Each structure stands twice: as C-alpha cells, then as structure tokens.
C-alpha cells in the first residue's frame, strides 16, 4: 500500500501551499497519474480519504485523471501514445517501444477556501 505514503506526500504539499497561499480548507484535489507510475487509482482514493481525515483536506474530493504514456516506436520512429508497457505501437504494430513519458504522478489543481 505505497499509495498511503503517496497520500502523505500529497498532504505535505497541500500544507506547504496552504501556508504560502493562505488557505485553510481544500475542497478538491485534481491529480494526473501516468500509466507507468506504479499507482493504482482505487488504492490512491482509499489512501486519500484515510490520510486526509482531520487535516485541511478532510472530506475533499479527489479527481483522478489517467494520462497516457508516451513512447518512441523503434520500428516506425513515430512518437505515439499508449496505455501500458505491453501495448504495441498503435501506428505500425511494432513491439519495440522506448518509453519517453508516463511515469508521472502530479497534483494539477486545487480548489481551496
């Protein structure tokens, strides 16, 4: 359950911003998860509710945007979007892909009061 420790990192980021941006409540947190990020959205949701309890983000909504991974196809040399490491190239069907992005886990937006 490393999603719990990721939620603790999120809370830390929220607290740092609360101080810098002078807000006391977080109503909504939007995050973007890359498919190669080793994060399970449902586990993240579960960890989020547990970790945020009693904090400035108690009861906050968690919005999860699942992004696609970017890869360079070594067969057709196109940069393509894929959903998992095992996907073939959507352009030519090639199986030799070099991943260039998609392991990110970021907070994109906060709705605060």
């Amino acid at each position, binding site marked *: 359950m*490393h999603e719990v420790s990721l939620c603790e990192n999120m809370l830390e980021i929220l607290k740092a*911003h609360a101080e810098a*941006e002078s807000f006391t409540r977080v109503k909504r947190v939007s995050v973007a998860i890359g498919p*190669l990020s*080793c994060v399970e959205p449902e586990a993240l949701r579960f960890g989020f509710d547990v970790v945020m309890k009693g904090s400035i983000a108690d009861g906050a909504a968690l919005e999860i945007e699942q992004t696609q991974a970017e890869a360079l196809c070594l067969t057709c040399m196109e940069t393509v979007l894929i959903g998992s490491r*095992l996907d073939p190239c959507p352009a030519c069907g090639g199986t030799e892909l070099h991943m260039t992005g998609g392991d990110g*886990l970021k907070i*994109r937006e906060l709705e*605060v*009061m």
Partner: protein
Amino acid sequence: MCTVCGCGPAHDQGHYHGNSTQKGVDLHFGHGTAGGHVPGVSQSRLLQLEADILGKNKSYAEKNRALLAQLGVFALNLLSSPGSGKTALLVETLKRLHGKETLAVIEGDQQTANDADRIRETGVAAIQINTGKGCHLDAHMVGHALESLPLQDGGLLFIENVGNLVCPAGFDLGEAHKVVILSVTEGEDKPLKYPDMFAAADLMILNKIDLLPHLDFDVAAAIENARRVNRKIQVLEVSARTGEGLDGWFTWLDQARTRQMALNSGHSQTELAAE
C-alpha cells in the same frame, strides 16, 4: 541530528518534512472562481500547480546518489518477490568478496532483523530497516542508513529491498542499478504480471536454476517476457545454492562498477572543467 534533512533523531514514527519546498512546482495566480478577492467574503478558488508527488523521494535519491559518488561507493538495489533467494544470493556474494572488498548491506523488511543477522554472520556490516506497514524502502530511509554504515572509497553497497515486485519499482534510492531476482519456482510470466519492476531493472537474475530438472519452468519464455517489457535488460542464470553461474554475476558486478566509476569521474571532470 540528521544531516540529510535536518530532522530530529526520533524515527520510530513516520516523520514528514513540512518545510521542504517541492521541486518542479509552478504556481499560477488569479484563477479564483469569483475572479477576484472580496475582503471578508470567503470564496473557493482554484490553484493550478504541477507538483510532483514523488518529488520528495527523488530529491533524497539524488542526495544519496551524490554522496555515494563522492564516496566512490557502487550501490545496487536488489528486488524480488519474497522467497526468490535474494538473501541467499547476497550471502554467497558477500562470502566470495569478503576480505577483498569493502562491503556494506542495507536490509529492508517489514519486521525482524533476521536478514541483517544472516548478513552479519558473514562478517559484513549490515543495517536493518524495518518499514513497519510500509511495502518498500524509500530514499529517505536509505539516506539515514548510509550515515550508520562504514562506507569506504571503492566499496560495494547492496540494498536488499522489501520482498515485493510492485511498490519498490517506483522508488529510486540513489542506486547505480536495480537488479531484479526471479526464481525458477515462480511463473515465467512474472515479468508480464509485474512489468514496472522488470522495466525498472537493468539486470534480471534467474535464481535456483539447480531446480530446473524438477520443474516445468520455461527459461527462454521468462527471458522473452522480460525483454518484452524491457528490451535492454541483461539476464544471468544462477544458483545461489550450488554456485552455478555465479562467475557471470561477479563479472557483471566488476564491469558495471568500472562503468559507474568512469561515469562518476567523468562527471567530476566535467564539473571541474566548468569551474
């Protein structure tokens, strides 16, 4: 006091560094839903940021990497599911290198110091990190362990991660390479079931090959599956128990270390040239 992060000595509870400024954060103001601020009136507003949730671990990992480079220590992160023979392989490795190299081990487990005790029996310095409920080692824990180990120039550091093919893949510890160990008593489709781990590793060690005559394990299929998720992954077939294939492992260690040291000195020369 901790020299890594400035936190106090009490690490029996998870501690977090609220004073850390996150790397890669962009702030954009003026996106309030009401478009302006009215004194005394509470309104919700939107803050847009690009805050990397793993940023904290990454920054600790880079500190560890810099420290290891400065010390001239070559570090490996050993990963596998529980029971693959990670500790057995490590013990055999240490026995062979003991007396010739400066060695140190960081052991990660949820509970017990059993593995660190097994390592210490070989005469090598080991520190046990118990992660409690945690499922992986993170770079912050390893940074603290580094303070307690007798690391010397030219030494080798083995970090045996928590037995888990999922979470440790996502946490850089500052190592030179991740090495994943798959035993032939597991399925040959493990690389497909846990692709993140095999994608993150530079070397896959197929362990327990002495048992192959008794099993239906398809070595070629296991290697093909690993290469499907990571076409660059190197593969070694060994038995920690009989010693078969271990020469290849020691050759890999030597070559990888030489490459890493050349890379480190290349970096420091570039830095010197830039000064």
